[in-house]
């Protein structure tokens, strides 16, 4: 049931900006304020080296309580039991749950897991957030090893787990990334569920590498087919995996994102696969998909090598109006930038200088946001090996490892440059990041960030970059004919004839993570900002606004 939309036409609200003045563009500064977020991730490991442990997990940002700021939902792992194995209680930790933190402003977060009803002590891996029933409240889908859960937002600060036959039967699978999107343009949101590997705990044997227990290669497991659930429009879903054609291939899905790669008006799906070709499912407009990754140029890296792809960020890196894909991967592989060249993607990692900084590291989450509001995105890349023992196994470079610093790449003269340790106190934090998301958590017009770190505290990063006053806008869309979250809508921002910035409202971010928020753009202060929205319904709307504003644009009837 769709809630009445309070504002039926353009609503513009002015928000005060706390940014300092100054015209120069300094390096971005992200300050480590992790003490403000009381979350420690566990993957449930107890010496068995289940591959799944090393993969977890993503996170989400959403305004679950409708108070206008972004709350944080962090996934947690769990102990994997071997069927039939004797189970000693000794040393067993109390199961930990996913956690929901309410944003109380000024980077104060309150754990509201229990009262909100989102507690889930499964091994959680991926998450997507969207208003699947168009009731104005963001819901949460959690992809687990175990039964997945669809958490319906009741609109009163609580969630109810939805019994859904189409998704309940998938409990034995190992989840990956998840993305809501409107595959058939019928105004409600369908759900793409990535699955990782075929895994049977009862057949588990501890893998050894160089004589020490180690996480096995993903190639030791068969890839698993993904699933597609179609929204029936009544709060239920049906499995259309077979009919949609995505069942023709099986991958080891991790991060994924749905977007209109060929700009034909329907939404396609990119899936980052671990140790095999990435998939790009091209939508024929009727919800039937063909895998075209190889033809489109996103299946492999420039050398024709399948990568251990992990996370993905969709972003117009070079501001040419086309959305590019930045895909993280394993150590001694590049975090690969697939630049969109009008329907063909070209691995431009080398040409853009995005190569050396990430090459030694296993990379996971990735944020492509305009941290310094200069109109060009920077990239925060989460790094960290699978476990702490790589050095012990010998032969490992000292520059890599489990607890390492994340990497920031900024743009200058068309090149990406490693900022190394200059991007604030968060640059000194050495952990092993998995999920990584950006969002304006304190509504100061600057993108902050949170890293979910394996077996460690999350890193909360406050953006303290000195940016000009009023150097951003944020655009919140409300669909009416289109799905209410406007997933799939294109937002084009132009100022004074300069290069147009493009973003697509989407589900599926970074590493198995998601965010429902207004879309942020860095803009030139004191100049009119021309905003154009191409809605999934096909409608287009234009609005001019001032820099420094947050606008909410409701789809015209």
């Amino acid at each position, binding site marked *: 049931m769709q809630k009445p939309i309070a504002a039926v036409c353009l609503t513009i609200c002015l928000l005060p900006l706390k940014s300092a003045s100054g015209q120069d563009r300094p390096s971005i500064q992200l300050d480590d304020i992790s003490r403000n977020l009381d979350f420690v991730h566990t993957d449930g490991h107890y010496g068995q080296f289940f591959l799944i442990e090393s993969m977890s997990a993503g996170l989400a940002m959403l305004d679950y309580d409708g108070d206008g700021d972004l709350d944080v939902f962090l996934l947690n792992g769990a102990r994997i039991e071997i069927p039939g194995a004797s189970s000693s209680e000794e040393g067993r930790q109390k199961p930990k749950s996913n956690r929901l933190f309410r944003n109380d402003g000024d980077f104060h977060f309150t754990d509201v897991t229990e009262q909100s009803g989102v507690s889930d002590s499964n091994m959680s891996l991926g998450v997507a957030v969207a208003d699947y029933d168009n009731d104005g409240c963001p819901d949460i889908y959690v992809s687990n090893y175990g039964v997945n859960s669809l958490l319906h937002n009741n609109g009163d600060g609580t969630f109810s787990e939805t019994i859904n036959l189409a998704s309940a039967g998938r409990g034995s699978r190992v989840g990956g990334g998840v993305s809501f999107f409107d595959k058939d343009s019928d105004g409600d949101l369908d759900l793409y569920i990535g699955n990782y590997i075929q895994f049977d705990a009862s057949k588990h044997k501890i893998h050894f590498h160089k004589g020490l227990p180690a996480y096995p290669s993903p190639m030791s497991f068969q890839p698993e087919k993904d699933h597609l659930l179609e929204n029936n429009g009544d709060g239920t879903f049906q499995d259309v995996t077979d009919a949609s054609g995505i069942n023709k291939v099986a991958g080891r899905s991790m991060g994924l994102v749905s977007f209109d790669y060929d700009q034909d008006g329907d939404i396609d799906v990119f899936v980052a696969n671990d140790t095999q070709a990435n998939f790009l499912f091209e939508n024929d407009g009727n919800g039937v998909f063909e895998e075209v990754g190889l*033809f489109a140029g996103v299946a492999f890296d*420039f050398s024709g090598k399948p990568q251990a792809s992990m996370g993905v960020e969709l972003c117009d890196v070079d501001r040419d109006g086309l959305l590019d894909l930045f895909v993280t991967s394993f150590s001694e592989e590049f975090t690969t930038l697939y630049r969109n060249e009008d329907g063909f993607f070209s*691995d431009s990692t080398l040409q853009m200088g995005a190569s050396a900084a990430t090459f030694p590291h296993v990379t996971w989450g990735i944020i492509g946001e305009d941290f310094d509001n200069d109109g060009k995105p920077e990239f925060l890349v989460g790094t960290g090996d699978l476990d702490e023992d790589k050095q012990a196994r010998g032969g490992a470079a*000292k520059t890599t490892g489990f607890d390492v610093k994340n990497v920031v790449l900024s743009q200058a003269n068309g090149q990406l440059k490693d900022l190394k340790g200059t991007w604030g106190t968060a640059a000194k934090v050495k952990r092993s990041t998995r999920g990584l998301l950006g969002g304006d958590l304190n509504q100061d017009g600057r993108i902050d960030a949170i890293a979910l770190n394996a077996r460690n505290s999350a890193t909360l990063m406050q953006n303290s970059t000195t940016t000009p006053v009023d150097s951003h806008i944020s655009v919140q869309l409300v669909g009416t004919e289109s799905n209410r979250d406007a997933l799939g809508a294109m937002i084009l921002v132009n100022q004074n004839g300069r290069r147009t910035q493009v973003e697509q409202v989407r589900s599926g971010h970074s590493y198995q993570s998601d965010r429902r928020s207004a879309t942020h753009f860095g803009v030139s202060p004191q100049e009119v900002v021309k905003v154009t929205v191409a809605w999934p319904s096909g409608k287009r709307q234009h609005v001019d606004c001032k820099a420094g504003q947050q606008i909410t644009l409701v789809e015209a009837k």
Partner: protein
Amino acid sequence: MHAIFCGKANRTLTTNLTDAARTSILAGRTERELLSASDPKEENAAADEDVVEIPAHPAASKKDSKASGGILPTVLGLLGLTLIAVIGYGSTNEWFGLFAESDSVPGPELQKENPLSNGDQTDSNRNLPASRNLAGNGNPSSADSQTSDEETARKEDLPPLDPIPSEKAVEVIEECKRVANHLYGTMPNSLEAKEMLARTEFEFGDTAKARVVWESILKLNPQFLYALRGLGDIATQEGELELAVNYYRKACECDPTSISRRVTLGVALTQAAKLEEAKTELESALENNPGHGGALAELGQVLLLLKDFEGAKTRLEAALAAQIPPNNIAKPHLGLVTAYQRLRDREKAKFHQVEYQKLSRDGSQVNSETRDYNDLAAIREDVGRFYVDMARVYVTGGFPASASLLLIRTSQMDKQNTGCRQALAFFSMQQRKPYEAIRWLGELQKIEPENFTYTKEISRLYVQTSEMEKAESVLIEFLDADPDNAAALHGTAMFFYSLLPNDGKGAKFAQRLVDQAPSGENYALLASIQDAAGKNDEAIEAMSKAAELSPENSKYSDALKVLRGEIIPADIPSSDSSGPIISPPPSTSVPPVVNSGSDQ
């Protein structure tokens, strides 16, 4: 001194055993390096270069022509030329290729073939002692060569091996580290010992330590290739891609003829985003090796990145036409999908996509399923390769018992390791223990049943021990199992030709050989056998065919004229620069090995 004939069959015989042994022992290269050699053509080219000049058997020129029963050997004996169109069975030097003549002091060229020699190394930095035999003095026929392993071992501080191979990978690794340290401690001035220490640290230990050791090697010898490569690998691993380029570039400068090093540099330049330089480097490498599949494939990839889709298409198609290692075939197909897609030729793009998918299904790609990984076996295999290399260093330093110990340990740990068994067979022969050598060769036969070389060596050893029936039966058994094996047919024909020239028994096998592989050289062999058996018409017929198939080879036509009685041997110019071709005077009395009796 005469070059032995460099025909294809000969090359096969010479290289099968020799290259492998040389890879793991003689030249200090690991099997990993061999596997990474990007182009079989390059390997073949290298093999061509490695064909060793073997001195004529002293007896060869003194053979009575009647002993061979034919005209040709007489002719050639008169000409002072050496031997026939193929390796002579009767010449043990030639027969063995790898293995040194056990009853005579090898000449310098033969030492070059010795797997424990460094004489043929192209690396200028490997200025190591010349070949040493097991006794450590370079002269297998000296009294010292009779020294037993035990006596030698008493003089050596042996590597600290566990009593039996451990069943725990960690302990296998620890043992390897101990041995590497022992090797270095035993030969502190040996760059190769240092290199093994660095490599062990890089593979199993501390990369930082490996870096320190390799850097210390470069201080002593700035052109030490393996240190340059090792430091390049570390730099790559750590994302210092430009530094890696510098190391690989220096390695190329030290070894400018190696195309594989230049391809490595091209790849490093690409990774370091120096695309134009990568293009130049690879194009330059291809100037001297235009058919090098690996270089073509890499250049194609670079051109794709440079958006020269036509150029990429051309190079990638050429790469496919060239010989590429099976696990690299998919790469050009993938590149061609992109190239044709960008050139708007969807059909061809689709074709290459399908080809790629077929390869994936065949499991020929690196990223095939890896379900049954056995860590202990993998570690034993890796450590075994290290031990074989370390054994080589021990031998060059004059510590043969230590080398033997490591080789035997390798044979215990890795049932598939050919390098250790080849070396042990060689050791056994040096020690005049033919039955021990036969035992190792028998294991090699089981590992590589399709490789005739081992069977041939076994047969030769039986000849040396005067067990002719066994010598014959091993050959026949091989052919029973693999009747169309050209190398085996050739070897068997040569066996009979050399040892029983007058009965023409070899003709049956030579005939099967020409049916199987109708080349000029094979017909020349058949002609020689027929001639030796006194079948002049058949010899003329076969030699006519040889001359017809190889018209450029004047020796066949000359031999044909001799057979026809049109000329006498003295009319044949002796300054023929095309090299010797004609059959060796068969050795009818191969001297038996002086058996020490210790390995019966």
